[in-house]
């Protein structure tokens, strides 16, 4: 179902063609990084720390180097030390420890050998002497007075301080006078919340193949959300010129933010350089869970004041994000993600806190879900306490264009109210709550981002087109690019071949994150097509012998008075004689990413004897701006929702006291399976983003923000329990029921 504001009638945009890369993916031909093999290829494996925090006294690789099949061994000493303040210093530290290991699973050496078995045997023969250091595993331990340092290298971002610290960042935000507002409020509710680390859980483990030639140039095939970032990070970590490195994007088997940074490529490059052979590294699932980015765990204290008729007058809060062993941006993004309600008075502090756990990475709307879980839970409690409908309370306070975000900047045109209304008016919300079940509501916000993209559009002799971009296709973006190009050029979407090109074949393009591919790269495609259409009109004018001003482009043909329309393929057929190949490249740094809101509604049943929560029905409404390919918009909404359901119910990191992850497998790290779920009903709301030629907002991320509160609010209405910690696993729910 789609709720759409008035917009132009499109011929291709908004249709659902079969994706261009689909055939290869259903017949098993699509090439993912681990599917590639090169002649003479070696297999690389890592040696990883068994300790949560230790100084490396010595590493002896001599025995390993003498083992059968071993061609190269590297350690931290094989990489240049990046200067303090270098933006990739933490990337380098996380990639290969030098001097100190910061978490169980931290890589500290790697081996390349003829077979994987030989490489594993050699890695096991590397002798390491450690001097153990204190291991900090929780937020509370880390921020305690006198706590040992998690990582001596860390400085608090933007603090101006050069003192080592366990704080990654401290971001205060403030407007109005919260103290006076709480004083005047009719109702004030304050609650504390906690969430576990959760993993992105992409099914494809990280993988790459790297071939460094005798000329020192590196060919890299990688699974990543952005091969230009693979190139820049690899160059930085190795201290190489960017131009030495070519990165070809393999098909990517899921990322969700976790493949926006690198874990393998510079190590494979150094092994290849040393051995003179191509090196392939494929992580195991165990490694993925132990040593790649989970999303931060969190603790929050949120206090909200309201009038008796449900106007939210003030929010005060502290949110701590447990970012792992190196600094990242989780804290300040989290603070800024509080942007859904008017809140005339606001005082928030978000803090990033280090622990001896893997460096956290972005995960779908990074930092927003933790904050939304807390805030949406308190708002729901306010609605209940005041006897108000949970949607009405949100409608009363929802931000509209011009209202400030947490950081003060006014929102552009947004569709939060429209999403709330869509749920309010939905079949689901209008249906009676099933016997034995309860219903919850939650909402989510995500900024979305723009950034740099490039696109080249080639018109071929026969009037077909090739659309070349640098945004890896994680979930159908090739089809979206082709749809926008089809709309612009006026040709059939399947006469267009969308290509994701390597770093030497297309202009620079930032990593696919922040729901930016369809928005920003799409804009580059549209700009290139528009320039091509101008050129097509000029060529048509030459052919028809008219002034180019007299030519219009209508439905794939040049149209001029007193001439038959000249279709695109008639013009491309005469390209040689009218000025040569028809090709345009457009590049941009896209501003104006449109924020996206989502509102979710779910029905749950709680087995009060076992604590098991079953999701019976689930509906999501989300503002897509314009859905270029509605099926893949729905897919993003559904996928984000189900990741959120996993976060809500069962996903968590379980650490032993020494910092060893105890559940590093898909058996015990419980992502949802098909039988856990109902259909996820979708309502695409379309409030076009005025800053995009087709009104696109990103849709990839917002969907993961609301489920935790939506389910917690439903569980509350089922049991009376106000669940304050995620996951709401059966043991946790039963323990809470026992205390009720």
């Amino acid at each position, binding site marked *: 179902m789609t709720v759409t504001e008035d917009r132009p009638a499109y011929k291709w945009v908004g249709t659902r063609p079969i994706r261009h890369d689909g055939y290869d993916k259903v017949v098993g031909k699509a090439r993912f990084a681990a599917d590639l093999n090169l002649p003479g290829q070696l297999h690389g494996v890592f040696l990883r720390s068994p300790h949560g925090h230790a100084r490396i006294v010595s590493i002896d690789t001599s025995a390993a180097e003498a083992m059968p099949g071993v061609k190269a061994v590297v350690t931290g000493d094989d990489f240049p030390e990046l200067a303090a303040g270098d933006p990739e210093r933490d990337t380098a530290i996380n990639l290969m420890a030098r001097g100190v290991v910061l978490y169980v699973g931290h890589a500290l050496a790697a081996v390349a050998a003829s077979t994987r078995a030989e490489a594993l045997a050699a890695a096991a023969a590397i002798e390491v002497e450690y001097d153990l250091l204190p291991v900090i595993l929780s937020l509370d331990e880390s921020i305690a007075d006198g706590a040992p340092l998690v990582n001596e290298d860390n400085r608090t971002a933007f603090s101006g301080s050069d003192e080592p610290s366990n704080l990654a960042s401290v971001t205060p935000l403030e407007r109005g006078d919260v103290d006076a507002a709480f004083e005047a409020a009719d109702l004030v509710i304050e609650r504390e919340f906690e969430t576990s680390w959760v993993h992105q859980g992409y099914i494809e483990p990280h993988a790459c193949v790297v071939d460094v030639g005798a000329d020192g140039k590196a060919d890299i095939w990688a699974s990543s959300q952005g091969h230009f970032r693979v190139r820049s990070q690899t160059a930085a970590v190795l201290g190489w010129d960017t131009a030495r490195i070519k990165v070809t994007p393999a098909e990517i088997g899921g990322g969700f933010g976790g493949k926006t940074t690198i874990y393998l490529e510079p190590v494979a490059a150094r092994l290849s350089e040393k051995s003179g052979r191509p090196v392939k590294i494929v992580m195991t699932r165990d490694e993925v869970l132990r040593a790649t980015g989970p999303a931060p765990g969190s603790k929050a204290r949120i206090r909200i004041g309201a009038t008796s008729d449900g106007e939210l007058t003030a929010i005060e809060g502290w949110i701590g994000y447990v970012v792992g062993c190196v600094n990242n941006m989780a804290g*300040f993004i989290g603070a800024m993600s509080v942007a859904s309600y008017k809140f005339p008075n606001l005082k928030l502090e978000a803090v990033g806190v280090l622990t001896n756990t893997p460096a956290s990475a972005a995960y779908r709307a990074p930092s927003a879900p933790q904050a939304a879980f807390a805030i949406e839970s308190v708002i729901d409690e306010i609605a209940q306490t005041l006897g108000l409908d949970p949607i009405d309370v949100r409608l009363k306070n929802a931000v509209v264009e011009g209202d400030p975000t947490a950081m003060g900047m006014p929102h552009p045109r947004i569709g939060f109210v429209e999403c709330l209304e869509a749920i309010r008016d939905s079949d689901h919300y209008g249906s009676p709550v099933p016997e034995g079940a309860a219903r919850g509501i939650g909402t989510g916000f995500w900024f979305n981002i723009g950034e740099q993209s490039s696109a080249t559009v080639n018109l071929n002799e026969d009037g077909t087109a090739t659309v070349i971009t640098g945004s890896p296709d994680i979930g159908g973006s090739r089809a979206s690019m082709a749809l926008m190009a089809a709309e612009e050029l006026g040709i059939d979407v399947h006469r267009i071949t969308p290509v994701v090109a390597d770093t030497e074949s297309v202009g620079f393009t930032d990593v696919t994150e922040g729901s930016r591919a369809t928005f920003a790269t799409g804009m580059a495609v549209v700009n290139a097509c528009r320039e091509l259409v101008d050129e097509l009109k000029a060529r048509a004018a030459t052919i028809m012998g008219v002034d180019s001003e007299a030519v219009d482009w209508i439905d794939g043909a040049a149209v001029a008075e007193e001439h038959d329309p000249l279709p695109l393929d008639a013009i491309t057929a005469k390209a040689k004689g009218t000025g040569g190949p028809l090709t345009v490249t457009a590049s941009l740094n896209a501003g104006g990413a449109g924020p996206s809101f989502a509102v979710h509604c779910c029905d749950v049943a709680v087995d009060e004897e076992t604590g098991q929560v079953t999701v019976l029905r689930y509906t999501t409404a989300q503002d897509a701006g314009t859905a270029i390919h509605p099926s893949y918009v729905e897919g993003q909404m559904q996928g984000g929702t189900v990741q959120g359901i996993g976060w809500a119910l069962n996903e968590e990191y379980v650490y032993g006291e020494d910092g060893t992850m105890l559940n590093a497998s898909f058996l015990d790290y419980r992502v949802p399976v098909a039988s856990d779920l109902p259909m996820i009903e979708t309502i695409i709301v379309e409030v076009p983003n005025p800053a995009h030629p087709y009104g696109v907002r990103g849709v990839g991320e917002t969907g993961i923000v609301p489920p935790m509160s939506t389910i917690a609010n439903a569980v509350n209405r089922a049991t009376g329990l106000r669940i304050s910690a995620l996951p709401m696993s059966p043991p946790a729910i039963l323990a809470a029921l026992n205390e009720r």
Partner: protein
Amino acid sequence: MPRAHLMSDHRRFTDGEAVIEVEGLTVGAVIAELERRYPGLGEILTNGSSAGVDGVIHAEPEYLVIGPDTDVYFVAPLAGG
């Protein structure tokens, strides 16, 4: 005159002032003037911030041309998943 809106953690440089009127034809000029008045602030705004102008967030906004009555919101840099 353009107005620079500072995040709370920038305000330690401005004695708590949140909104400051600053002359400038670009965001970079605004930052330079802020640095002149509040030494240290410019470095953070240059390397640690994006700017929201007319509802649009810009990464690396230094050369963005602004109007005489523009609100410039300095915000922390964004990323995504």
